[in-house]
C-alpha cells in the first residue's frame, strides 16, 4: 500500500461488514505511523545496527578476554576475536578465592542495607509529598533533588570525619548511609510519581468506609504501589552497586567492596588481566539480568520519575 491510496481510503465511510473495517483500520494505522521516520528504511537500519555494533563491541571484547589465558591476552601477535582455547580458569580463580568472594559479599551487604534504608524512609516521605500540602513542601522537594545532583566528591571528606566521630567508619553501615545521599531523593521522587498516579479518592473512600490508616496502608495502598517500590529498589540497588568514590573513601581492607577491589587488583607480576576481566563480567551480570524486566522503567528511573 502506498501513501496516496491510503489517503483515498481514509475519508471513505466505514463499510458494513467488519472484516473490511479491520483491514482498513490496519492500513490507515500503518500509514499514519510511516512519517514518524525521518529517514528511509535502509538508512534507519544502518544507523541502528551501526549503533548496536558500537555498543556491543567493547562488551564482547571484555567477555572474550575473560575466557583467555593471560599469555594469550598479552600476546601482541594474536589479538584474536575468538579465544584459541576457551578457559574458565579466571572464573574459577575468583569463585575459589575468599578475598574476591568476600568483596562481593561486602558489596551485597551494604547495597542491601542501603536499599532497605532508602525504601523504608522513602515510602512514608513519598506518601506525604503526594497526598498532603504542607508549608515548604515544594522547596523541600527541590532541595532533595539537588542532593541527588550534588557531586559525591564534595561530601567525601566531611563524611569521613563524621562517620569516624560516631565510630562507624570502615563498616558496611558507613557506605550504606553515605549512599542515601543520592539514593533516598531518587527513591522519594520515583515513589512520589507512582503514588500520584493513584487517585486520592481511593484513600478517602477507604477512610469513609471506616478503615484505619495502618490497615489501609498495608492492605490496600502498599499492594497498589508494589511496582513503584520494585523500580525504586532496583535503582537504589543500581546506583549503590556502581558508586565508587564514597565506597572507596569510607572503607579499608576489612570491608572493601568489589568496585574498590577491582581498582586495586594489580598483583606483583603486573595486571592479572584474565581475573580482572572475569571479575568485571561477573559484576555486570546482576544488571544485565534485570534489563529485560526493567526496560519500560529505565527512562523513569534515570529521569527521577519525571517521564
Amino acid at each position, binding site marked *: 500500500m502506498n*501513501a496516496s491510496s491510503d*489517503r483515498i481510503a481514509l475519508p471513505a465511510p466505514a463499510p458494513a461488514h467488519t472484516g473490511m473495517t479491520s483491514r482498513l483500520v490496519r492500513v490507515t*494505522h500503518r500509514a499514519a*505511523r510511516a*512519517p*514518524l*521516520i*525521518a*529517514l528511509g528504511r535502509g*538508512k534507519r*537500519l544502518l*544507523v*541502528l545496527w551501526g549503533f548496536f555494533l*558500537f*555498543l*556491543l563491541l*567493547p562488551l564482547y*571484547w*571484555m567477555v572474550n*578476554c575473560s575466557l583467555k589465558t593471560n599469555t594469550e591476552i598479552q600476546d601482541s601477535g594474536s*589479538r584474536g576475536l575468538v579465544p584459541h582455547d576457551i578457559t574458565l580458569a579466571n572464573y574459577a580463580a575468583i569463585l575459589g578465592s575468599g578475598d574476591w568472594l568476600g568483596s562481593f559479599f561486602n558489596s551485597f551487604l551494604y547495597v542491601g542495607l542501603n536499599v532497605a*534504608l532508602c525504601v*523504608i*524512609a522513602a515510602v512514608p*516521605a513519598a*506518601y*506525604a509529598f503526594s497526598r*498532603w500540602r*504542607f508549608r515548604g513542601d515544594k522547596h523541600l522537594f527541590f532541595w532533595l533533588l*539537588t542532593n541527588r*545532583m550534588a*557531586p559525591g*566528591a*564534595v*561530601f*567525601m*571528606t*566531611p*563524611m569521613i570525619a*563524621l562517620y569516624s566521630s560516631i565510630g562507624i567508619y570502615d563498616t558496611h553501615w558507613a557506605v550504606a548511609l*553515605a549512599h*542515601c*545521599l543520592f539514593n533516598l*531523593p531518587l527513591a*522519594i521522587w520515583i515513589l512520589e510519581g507512582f503514588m500520584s498516579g493513584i487517585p486520592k479518592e481511593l484513600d478517602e473512600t477507604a477512610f469513609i468506609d471506616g478503615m484505619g490508616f495502618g490497615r489501609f496502608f498495608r492492605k490496600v495502598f502498599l499492594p497498589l504501589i508494589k511496582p513503584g517500590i520494585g523500580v525504586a529498589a532496583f535503582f537504589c540497588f*543500581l546506583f549503590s552497586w*556502581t558508586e*565508587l*568514590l564514597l565506597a572507596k573513601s569510607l572503607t579499608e581492607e576489612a570491608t572493601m567492596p568489589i*568496585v574498590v577491589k*577491582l*581498582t586495586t587488583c594489580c598483583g606483583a607480576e603486573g595486571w592479572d*588481566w584474565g581475573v580482572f576481566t572475569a571479575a*568485571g563480567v561477573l*559484576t555486570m551480570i546482576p*544488571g*544485565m539480568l534485570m534489563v529485560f524486566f526493567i526496560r*519500560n522503567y*529505565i527512562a523513569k528511573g534515570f*529521569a527521577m520519575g519525571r517521564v
Partner: protein
Amino acid sequence: MTNRAWLFLAPALFLVAMNAFIPLMTVVNYSLHNLIPGVREAEYVGLDNYRDVLHVPAEEDPAAAPAAEEELDPEWAAWIAEGEAEMAEVETSKASEFGDAIGRQFLFTFLILAIEIPLGLAVALCLPRSSWGTTASLVLLGIPLLIPWNIVGMVWRVFTRSDIGLLAPVFAIFGYEYQPATSPVDAWWTTVAMDVWHWTPLVVFLCYAGLKTIPEPYFRAAEIDGASRWATFRHVILPRLRYVLILAVLLRTIDSFNIYTEPAILTGGGPGSTTTFMSFFVNNLKDSKGLLAAVSMIYLFIVIMLCYVLFTIMQNLTREKPAL
C-alpha cells in the same frame, strides 16, 4: 495534616541530615580554616582559601607583618620567607589547575551534549516498529546503563589499552598509531567515546518515551497536508519532544559534571592532568582540606546554578504544555 506530614518525613529527613546537611556545613566550616594535616589546631583564615583558589591576591596586613620580622633573627626570617614563597607557588599552581579543570569540564560537557543528544534522537527515530524488535532494541540499549560505572571504565580500558585492546591493532591497519596512555588527544576522544557509549542509550530511552506520547492523528494530519519528512520532524516531532530533550540535557549536564568513576579507571586523569575533570580534581586535593573545601563550595555552586537554570526552563515548558 502538617504534623502528620512531618512525622512521615522524619526518617527521610534524619537520613538527609546525616548525609547532606551536616557534611555540607562541615565543608563550609573547613573552607574557612587553614587545615594542615598533622596539626591539630585549625586556624581561622576567613576567605583566604577562596582567594587562593580564585587567584585573588590576599589583602596585605601592613601592621602585623614588619613587627613580627624584627624579632626574628635574619636566618629564620629568610627560611620563613622561602617557605612562604613555596607555599604561594603551590597555591598559584593549584589555582591555575583549578581553572584548567573547570575549562576541561565545560568542554567535556559541551562535547558529550553535542554528540549524545542528536545521536540519541536519531537512534530513537530509527527504532524498529515491530513490538519484538522494539523490545529487543530496548534490552540491548539498556545494557550500558545497567552495568556498574566502574565496569564501564574497565570495559573501555580493556578495549582501548594499547597492549591488550582491540582498538590499537584496528587503527594500526589504517596507519594511525593509537596511544591513549601517552597522547592527550587519544585519551580525550576515548573518554568522550566512552561517555557516548554509556549515556546515549539514556537519551534514546527518554526520546522514545516522548515519541510514544505523540498522538497518531498528528502524523495523519501532517501527511494529509503533504508535509515532507523533514517538515514532519521539524514541526510535529521536535516541538513535542522539547520537554524530554531539555530533561536529557539537564540529566547529562549534571551527571557529566559529577563524572568521576569512569575516567578514574579509564585514564586515571592522565596523561598528565589532561583528563582531570572537576570531581577528580577535588579528590586530588585530599591533602589540604581547606583548599578542598573551598574548591568544593565553588564546584557545588556551579552545579546547583546549572541545575536551577535547567530545572526552571523545564518547569516553564511543562507549564506551557501540560500534555506530558
